[in-house]
C-alpha cells in the first residue's frame, strides 16, 4: 500500500512539474523575461564580459559543433591532468597518490561525456580538490553541453531558411546559471538537512562500540551529489554512490534525488513544445516516454517481488538498503537507467534477472526515455525522424517533420546516430567475451557473467554510468574499452545530430495540409513506441536471451552458478 502511494506521488509530481519547468526553461533560452533574471542576470553578463563571449552572435552548425568539441576536449585534458597530478595539488587530506593513467583516462572520459561511469572509488582514489574542480565542474558543464546541443537541434528544426543555430557559449552559460545552479543550491541544502555531509575536514577515526577502529570518510559531498543527480551525471562521491548513508541518508533525500534526476529531462520536452509552438507534440513525446517508463517499472517490480528459487526468498535484499526497501530500490533502478543518470541506491548486479534486464534494455534503447539532460531529447528526436520516415514510406509521401522535408542526408545521419551506440554494445561486448582480459574481471559466472559485460558496454554507450559492479572494471582493458565506448556513444550521436540541425535549419517550412502526417496524436505515439521497441528489440534480443532471460528461467528451476 505504502509502495503504491510513493509510486503515485512520484509520477504525479513528474507529470505536474515537467511542464512548469519546461516553460521556465523555454523563457530562459529564448531570452525572454523570467523570475531569475533580476536575481542573477548580472552574473550572466559578467561571465560574458570576463570570457569575452558575444552572446548575441549566432553560430552555424559547424562553428557550434566545433565549439562543443573543443570545449569538451579541453575539459577532458584538464580533468586528466588534474588526476595525474593529484598528489602535488592542494586539499589532498588523505594523502592520496596520483591516479593511474588508464583510470585517469577512463574517469576523464566518463565525466566529459556525461556518463560518469565509476571505475574509481571516491573515498580512496580522488582528493577533494579533484572531486570539486574536476568532477563537480564536469557534472555541470557536461550536462550544459547536452542542453546546448539539443537547443541547437531544436532551433534547426523550428527556424526556417537560416544558418543560425544560436550561440553555444551563451546556451551553456544560461543552462548552468539559470537552471542547474539554482536547483543544485536548493537540493544541496535539502540533502544536508537529511544528513548528507558537506565539509572540508579530513576523515574521522572512531572507536566503535565493539572496540574496533572505523575510519569515517567525509568531504564536500552534498554539493556534488546535487548536481550529479540534476545533471543526469551519476558519478558518486563515495564508492557506493547513492546507497552510501552520507550520500543518501533518508527516504526523503532518496525521493528528492530520484526526482532530481528525471525532472530536467522531463521539462525539456515541454521546452521543445514552446519552441515548436506545439504543446500537443510535446505532450505526445512525453506520453511516449511515460508509457515506456511505466512499463519498465511494472516489469521490474513484478520480477523483483517474485520468488527466487535459488535463494528461496521473495524480494531479496542483497545489495539493498533497509531504509529504501525493495520498491524504492526498483523505482530508482528504472529511473536512473531511462535517464542517463546512472547513480544507484541499490546494487544492480544483485537485482533479479528481469529487473536487471529492464535496466539494461533502457540503456540499450539509447537513453531516450526521458534520457540524459538534453541528450535524451535529441535522442528521441532521432527516433521521431525515423518514425516519420517509415510512416512516409508506408503512405508513399515525402516524409515531413514540423513542416520540413526529410531527405536522404538526414536519414543517413539518423541511421549513423542509431547505429553508433549499438555497435559499441555488441562489438565491444563480443571482444570482451572472447579475450582473457575481458573474462578475468567477472564476479559471477553463468549467464549472469555475460550480463555483467553486456551491462558495462550498454552503460558506456548510453552514457549512463551505472554498473553491474561485480565486474572489476578498473583494469587497463576495461578502462580503455569503456572509455572509448563512452566517447563513441556520446559524440557518435552529437556529430550527426548537429549535422541534422544544420541541414534542417536551411529548409523551408511547408504549411500543414490534410495529407500531413500528424505528430501530435495517439497514432503517432503508438508508431513511435513501436519503432523504438522494434529497433531496440531486433538489435538486442539475441544477447538478452543469452543473459538475463535464460538466467530468469534457470532461476525458476532453482539452478545456481
Amino acid at each position, binding site marked *: 500500500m505504502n509502495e503504491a502511494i510513493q509510486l503515485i506521488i512520484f509520477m504525479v509530481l513528474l507529470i505536474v512539474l515537467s511542464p512548469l519547468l519546461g516553460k521556465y526553461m523555454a523563457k530562459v533560452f529564448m531570452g525572454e523575461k523570467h523570475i531569475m533574471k533580476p536575481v542573477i542576470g548580472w552574473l550572466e553578463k559578467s561571465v560574458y564580459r570576463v570570457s569575452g563571449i558575444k552572446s548575441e552572435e549566432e553560430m552555424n552548425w559547424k562553428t557550434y559543433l566545433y565549439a562543443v568539441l573543443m570545449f569538451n576536449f579541453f575539459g577532458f585534458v584538464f580533468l586528466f591532468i588534474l588526476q595525474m597530478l593529484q598528489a602535488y595539488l592542494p586539499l589532498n587530506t588523505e594523502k592520496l597518490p596520483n591516479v593511474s593513467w588508464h583510470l585517469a583516462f577512463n574517469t576523464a572520459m566518463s565525466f566529459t561525456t556525461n556518463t560518469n561511469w565509476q571505475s574509481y572509488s571516491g573515498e580512496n582514489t580522488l582528493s577533494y580538490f579533484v572531486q570539486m574542480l*574536476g568532477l563537480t565542474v564536469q557534472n555541470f558543464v557536461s550536462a550544459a553541453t547536452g542542453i546546448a546541443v539539443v537547443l541547437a537541434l531544436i532551433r534547426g528544426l523550428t527556424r526556417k531558411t537560416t544558418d543560425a543555430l544560436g550561440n553555444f557559449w551563451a546556451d551553456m552559460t544560461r543552462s548552468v546559471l539559470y537552471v542547474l545552479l539554482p536547483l543544485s543550491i536548493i537540493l544541496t541544502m535539502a540533502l544536508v538537512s537529511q*544528513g548528507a555531509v558537506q565539509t572540508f575536514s579530513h576523515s574521522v577515526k572512531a572507536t566503535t562500540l565493539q572496540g574496533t577502529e572505523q575510519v569515517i570518510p567525509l568531504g564536500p559531498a552534498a554539493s556534488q551529489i546535487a548536481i550529479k543527480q540534476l545533471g543526469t551525471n551519476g558519478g558518486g562521491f563515495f564508492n557506493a554512490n547513492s546507497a552510501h548513508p552520507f550520500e543518501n541518508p533518508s*527516504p526523503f533525500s532518496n525521493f528528492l534525488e530520484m526526482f532530481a534526476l528525471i525532472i530536467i529531462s522531463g521539462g525539456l520536452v515541454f521546452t521543445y513544445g514552446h519552441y515548436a509552438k506545439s504543446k500537443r507534440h510535446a505532450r505526445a513525446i512525453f506520453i511516449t516516454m511515460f508509457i515506456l517508463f511505466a512499463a519498465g517499472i511494472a516489469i521490474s517490480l513484478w520480477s523483483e517481488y517474485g520468488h527466487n528459487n535459488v535463494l528461496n526468498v521473495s524480494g*531479496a535484499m542483497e545489495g539493498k*538498503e533497509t531504509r529504501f526497501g525493495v520498491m524504492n530500490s526498483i523505482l530508482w533502478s528504472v529511473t536512473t537507467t531511462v535517464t542517463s543518470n546512472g547513480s544507484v541506491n541499490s546494487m544492480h548486479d544483485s537485482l533479479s534477472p528481469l529487473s536487471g534486464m529492464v535496466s539494461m534494455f533502457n540503456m540499450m534503447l539509447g537513453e531516450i526515455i526521458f534520457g540524459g539532460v538534453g541528450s535524451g531529447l535529441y535522442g528521441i528526436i532521432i527516433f521521431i525522424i525515423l518514425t516519420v520516415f517509415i510512416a512516409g514510406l508506408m503512405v508513399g509521401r515525402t516524409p515531413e517533420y514540423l513542416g520540413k522535408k526529410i531527405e536522404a542526408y538526414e536519414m543517413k545521419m539518423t541511421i549513423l546516430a542509431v547505429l553508433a551506440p549499438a555497435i559499441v554494445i555488441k562489438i565491444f561486448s563480443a571482444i570482451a567475451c572472447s579475450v582473457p582480459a575481458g573474462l578475468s574481471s567477472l564476479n559471477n559466472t553463468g549467464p549472469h557473467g555475460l550480463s555483467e559485460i553486456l551491462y558495462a558496454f550498454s552503460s558506456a554507450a548510453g552514457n549512463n554510468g551505472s554498473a553491474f559492479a561485480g565486474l572489476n572494471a578498473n583494469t587497463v582493458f576495461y578502462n580503455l574499452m569503456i572509455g572509448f565506448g563512452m566517447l563513441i556513444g556520446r559524440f557518435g550521436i552529437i556529430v550527426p545530430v548537429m549535422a541534422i540541425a544544420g541541414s534542417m535549419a536551411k529548409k523551408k517550412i511547408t504549411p500543414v495540409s490534410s495529407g500531413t502526417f500528424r505528430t501530435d496524436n495517439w497514432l503517432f505515439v503508438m508508431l513511435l513506441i513501436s519503432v523504438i521497441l522494434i529497433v531496440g528489440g531486433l538489435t538486442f534480443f539475441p544477447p538478452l536471451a543469452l543473459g538475463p532471460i535464460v538466467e530468469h528461467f534457470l532461476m525458476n528451476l532453482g539452478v545456481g552458478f
Partner: protein
Amino acid sequence: MTILTGIVYPLFMTGIVQLTFPSKANGSLIKKDGKIIGSELIGQKFDSSIYFWSRPSAIGYNPIPSGASNYGPTSDTLKKQVTARRVLFAKMNSISDPLAVPKEMLFASASGLDPHISQKAALLQVDRVAKARNLNAIQKQKLVQSVKNLTEMPQFLVLGEERVNVLILNLELYKIDQNITYNK
C-alpha cells in the same frame, strides 16, 4: 565557469550548511565521554551476543571504500552465505523456523554501511541480548519498549521503510544495563 562551479559553488554551500546544519554537515558524529564512537548514519559491525546485530556487510563495515558483494541472483556463493546466515541467526536467537528470519539479516547491504534493521529483526534479538547481559524482567521490558520507541516510521508517513538504527539501539543498552561499561 570552472571557478564558479568548482570553487565558488562548493565553498559557498559548505559555508551555508556549516552554519545551518553544522552537526549533519560534519557526518552526524556521536561522541561518548569525549571520544568519537561513530556516526549515526554509518553502520557498525555488531556480532557479539551482548549487542543487537547489524546486517551482514560485504566490507565488514570498514568504510574505505564502501561497497557490496555484487553477487548475482543465481549465485551459488550467495546461496551458501544466505543459508549460513539463516541458520546462525535462527540458532543464536532461538528461532524455531529458519524461514522466519527477516530478509535484511540474510543479505549484505548496498553500501556495506547500512545503519538500520527492521523492527522485527530487532525484537527477535531481545531475548538473546537480555540473556547475554543477565537483564531482569523489568529491564527486558524496558528494552522491548526502547526498540519500539526507537523505531523510525516511514518519513512523512509514506516514504521509505520502517526501521531501527542499530547503533542507537545498542547505545540505549547502556542506559538500561548500568553494570557494563562501553567499549568492552
